[in-house]
């Protein structure tokens, strides 16, 4: 039962075959077996949000998911967020308004907010603060993250075809 199993994972548009113990967390498989170390591991029990990725387009904690559960699902990690060499509007905004310091929480915040802005293109500040409550940041005090989200949302709306 704890013998390694072989499974295929669709991550960032590519299919990877991995052989891992069934009890291995998705966050650890992404980092250790696929080398996608942009997904960070903080609390390992779903509280801090650093490991947030997208499962079928929706934000989820990779540390609360076993990799074996993910066959047949579409995974997106921070490595697929930038558009080639160009930062995404949210990444650019975080850079411009100093929305990160050590950067440990940033990948999880980017995954959470990217999915949220796709479904809620014009959030107000209260909504943004509620959203960010699921991602702990110990450096910034959040003020500049909120500013970055507002700026990114405006940029994404401006880019969208009318």
């Amino acid at each position, binding site marked *: *039962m704890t013998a390694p199993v072989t499974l295929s994972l669709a991550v960032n548009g590519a299919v990877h075959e991995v052989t891992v113990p069934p009890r291995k967390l998705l966050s650890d498989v992404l980092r250790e077996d696929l080398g996608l170390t942009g997904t960070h591991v903080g609390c*390992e*029990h*779903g509280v801090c*949000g650093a490991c*947030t990725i997208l*499962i079928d387009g*929706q*934000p*989820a*904690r990779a540390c*609360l*998911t*076993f990799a*074996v*559960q993910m066959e*047949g699902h579409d995974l997106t990690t921070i490595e697929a967020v930038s558009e080639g060499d160009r930062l995404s509007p949210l990444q650019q905004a975080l850079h411009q308004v100093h929305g990160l310091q050590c950067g440990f929480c940033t990948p999880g915040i980017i995954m*959470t907010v990217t999915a*949220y802005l796709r479904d809620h293109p014009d959030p107000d500040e209260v909504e943004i603060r*509620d*959203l960010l*409550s*699921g*991602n702990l940041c110990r450096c910034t005090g959040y003020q500049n993250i909120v500013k970055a989200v507002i700026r990114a949302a405006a940029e994404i709306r401006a880019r969208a075809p009318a």
Partner: protein
Amino acid sequence: MLNMRLAQPEHLIDLNDLIELDRVIDHGEWVEVGALTRHHRVATAPEIRQGVPLLADAAATIGHYAIRQRGTLGGSLVQADPAAQLPLVAVTLGADVMVRSRRGRRTVAAAEFLRAIMSVDLAGDELVTGVCFPRQPDGERWAFDLFSRRHGDFAIVAVALTLQLDDAGAIVALRLGVGGVGPVPMRLTAVEQRAVGLVPDGDTILDLARNAAAAITPEDDPLVPAKYRRDLVETLTARALRRVTADWPEVTT
């Protein structure tokens, strides 16, 4: 549960891909919500927002946005945390839990399904397939409120209520459920009965809230004294009653 090593099952079956249990069906008198329906969908589905708005409002307060994308109605009911939102709403509204196994199907009232802290009426070969919530009547008002020390944490105390008023503004029916004050969420039926016929002005609200606090018998725990929980029940009940009376938005058509 697994992560905290509270549960160490020999076998673990992933139900997440049973997508046919991620569903909301409006049966008129009842709204059936599948066990695999995610909290985010419970909070936003038009059939629930219209038919069982108390449920939708409660689901919107669970955890955080990413958590609500994965957590499910069935998962919350079966975990049976004494302070969780959805068991409280199921008990308050008198919902029925639908259970299935190879032996057949059965339905059990939420108040009977929840037996004790994290313990439910479910055999090893049974699966919760969904929950049937009675539609809230037209004109019924509702409020859900909770207190937790950090936004998104489990509540210390949570309160769910519905209220119907007659044309003179007197209470026709009150349902008042509280969570976090005992092993399972409970209806405060004595307070509900006391409320009938009263006009919920400021003094009446305070009286009902004090009676709610007196109706529970929480125990001291290392972090939360019993008196603190009782004070929270009083405060949250009063706040919820004000929200469905003085602060209830006038209907504009």
